[in-house]
């Protein structure tokens, strides 16, 4: 209890191929990996009849001068190996981050107040807490929703569901690595400090409807499936431990 270990696996290459594969590239001076992925997310569409298509791109470091539709989310790919969210052991991928862009068939961006479509290097500041670094790869999912589906909750939910189902394949492979093969390990303790001033953090997050939603406590860190929507609980306050929060308790929907 109150102890969370996050093992990171650093990836220095990602390419499209036949099937999901995570390969070790180097042992020294640090352990690095490469990822091979199928370029087709359509098998995960299932009965998602609100989605017209989802195509995938790999954006390499230094190749950010590319056009993209409005950015819905940037997310890490992490997996729970032992215990529940907020305790035990999690694994996370560094060097590659997921990104979702959204538009509908009529050209309406999936966004609320202002959209971020345009050239990626002009529409995103790299190196922030919530954006990839200059040297990171971006695994981009470009979603096209059917007309006006971006205005309803079902549209963005379906996109996140498909992306999450695709990423679950990567997570399952990540879980199979030996613990000693990780690039870096960090352990976090939720410490109670009696006698010190008690400080709480209140985070007010999106919850107004449609894509303006936030999910929390999914099955996997920073995941979608199994998560709860703040809209469904009418924005009511929920208590999260520091370790739950840093273990990826939140999925921002857009």
């Amino acid at each position, binding site marked *: 209890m109150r102890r969370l270990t996050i093992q990171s696996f650093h990836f220095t290459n990602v390419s499209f191929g036949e099937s999901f594969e995570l390969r070790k590239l180097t042992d020294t001076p640090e352990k690095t990996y490469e990822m091979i992925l199928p370029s087709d997310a359509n098998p995960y569409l299932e009965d998602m009849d609100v989605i017209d298509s989802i195509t995938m791109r790999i954006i390499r470091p230094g190749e950010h001068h590319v056009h993209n539709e409005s950015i819905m989310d*940037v997310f890490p790919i992490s997996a729970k190996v032992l215990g529940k969210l907020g305790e035990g052991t999690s694994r996370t991928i560094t060097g590659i981050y997921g990104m979702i862009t959204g538009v509908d068939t009529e050209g309406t961006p999936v966004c609320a*107040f202002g959209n971020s479509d345009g050239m990626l290097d002009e529409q995103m500041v790299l190196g922030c807490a919530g954006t990839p670094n200059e040297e990171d790869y971006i695994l981009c999912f470009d979603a096209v929703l059917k007309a006006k589906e971006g205005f309803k909750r079902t549209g963005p939910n379906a996109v996140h569901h498909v992306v999450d189902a695709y990423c679950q394949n990567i997570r399952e492979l990540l879980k199979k690595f030996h613990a000693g093969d990780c690039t870096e390990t960090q352990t976090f303790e939720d410490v109670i400090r009696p006698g010190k*001033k008690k*400080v709480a953090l*209140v985070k*007010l997050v999106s919850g107004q409807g449609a894509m303006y939603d936030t999910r929390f406590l999914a099955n996997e860190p*920073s995941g979608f499936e199994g998560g709860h929507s*703040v809209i469904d609980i009418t924005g009511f306050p929920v208590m999260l431990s520091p370790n739950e929060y840093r273990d990826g308790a939140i999925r921002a929907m857009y």
Partner: protein
Amino acid sequence: MGVGPSTKETTLHHFRDPLLKVLSEDTDIDFQGVVLAGIPQDNVNKLFTGERIGYWIEAMRSDGVIVSADSWGNSDIDFANTVEMIGKRGIPVVGLSFCGVSGQFVVTNPYMDTIVDINKNPEGIETDVVGENSLSELDAKKAKALLKLKMRK
């Protein structure tokens, strides 16, 4: 994420949240945890949520609170009300929000005397550039420092 792209907090932002880092690494405070609350659509629910947060914080016997929101405009109602519900209980509270020029508070109250503006754009506007006006580690450190000063009184 939030209302405008530049203040949006992505899933990655929450995973690497500077506020959590700054608060949990400080051995001088007893960091209790994160109260996550939504910004609902309906005005009645907006006020109700803030009220519940007030009672919750009181029950936690918190000595100080940082309130952060990644959106603005009608979200200011939620933000201002939450700050008021904590402040009127005599609990020191510091807020973090995007103000700049275009995001000035649409509502305010006497408890909003220590707000850190997370704007980074020189013109103080929502630029539609993801990450530009998002909360940084420096913002988090400012908020913590202000809260420590307030708690000392």
